[in-house]
């Protein structure tokens, strides 16, 4: 139960999604750090299909667009997971 976040091996800058050249140090080697939770900064619901979409701030810095499953509200800590490549946020 975690979401892999790309982190520059040279300077530790985190990005999401993955980049090729680090925006901070121009490094080109990336490792992936599993992140288990973050803070839901905002969310909305697509009226057409009822899918909840949220913005999650991960502790490493980046804002991640996630599918929100379950009743989480802006300001809540959420658990992060990945469905394939897709970030998923759930209430803790």
């Amino acid at each position: 139960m975690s979401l892999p976040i790309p982190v520059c091996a040279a300077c530790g800058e985190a990005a999401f999604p993955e980049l090729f050249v680090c925006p901070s140090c121009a490094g080109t080697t990336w490792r992936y750090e599993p992140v288990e939770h973050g803070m839901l900064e905002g969310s909305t619901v697509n009226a057409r299909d009822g899918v909840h979409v949220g913005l999650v701030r991960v502790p490493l810095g980046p804002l991640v667009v996630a599918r929100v499953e379950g009743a989480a509200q802006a300001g809540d800590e959420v658990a992060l997971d990945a469905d394939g490549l897709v970030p998923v946020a759930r209430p803790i």
Partner: protein
Amino acid sequence: MSGAPEARIVGAAEVPYTRHPADDVSTESLLADAFVRVLADAGIERSAVDGLGVASFMLPPDRAIDLAWKIGVRARWLMDDGNGGVSGIQLLQHAARAIESGDASTIVLLSGDHFDEGGFRQMVDRYNLVTEKYLAKIPTGGPNPLFAMITRKQMDERGLTREDYGRLVVAQRRWASLNPGAVYRSPLTLQEYLDAPAVAEPLHRLDCVPVVSGADALVVSGSGDGVKIRALRSLYNYDGQRGDGLRTGIAEIADDLWRDAGVGPGDVDVISVYDDYPAMAIAQLDDLGLVPDGDIAAFLRHRVEGERLPVNTSGGQLSAGQAGCAGGMIGLVEAFTQLTGRAGDRQVEHARLAVVTGYGMVLYRYGGCANAVVLEGP
């Protein structure tokens, strides 16, 4: 620079946008139609055209060269640009430089798209690789949820309500009611705006541009009277998607733009901002410096609603719909129409200066591209 030609816009045209085009309409037929119309508007022969620039999402696998062949243009300058909301100003920038450096003398710029239902879904889900991999499978169903969350953040930070956004939408619809070319022309009340069904809170149906088919065109020339480019600035990938999307790249080019133009935001007579969503149109108005005290709600109430500030006087995309890449040129065509005094019932009196912005290309969470131009009438 004595003797070097000065590029001017000498013609503009729009193939009327429509929700339900005829069966034989295609992206290339719309672009070809725009080409024929803009030659007529500029009063030039096809044989005078020696440059062609094309912006379209759906034209591929064809490119500008295929279109050049099919519309019979023998070009010394050729450019493809699929950068959506910034493509019009980007094409204009490069065309003007090409003319001023002698690469070409008369350039036609075309932008437009036709979508069928499947084609639109595919474009939305494969907008770029990041969308395909990280957003389409959520599924976000396109950019609406992203801009819903940006709108919510703008509401919280700037103290805005849905009524405030509605003032801009209703004002644009009032302009559209005076424009025979707009798709949605029936006057709109604030209550109707508020009552429209939710798309993704806080966005409702009238906050989202409908998908239409259509095309726009410009002629840029080194000779003849026309609309002058006083200043043009661009900024792409301005923040590496590390911000909140509320401040566009326009904020970072505005000072240079106004300095180059030798005028300030209060001096322009006509304003066209890229209006894919009211929140982003408002962000660009703010970034341009049109809201000097930062009180957006008061600006919308007093300047846009009360004084009928000429913002998106064609009705904009919110009243015309979004014809793909044509959305990046619709503001230029309207500014040209206003500055040449041919805007009919919606003509802004004594319109001499216009500012037009481009915004867009959602890289992940918001648009990564911005540009702006200050135009001066003949």
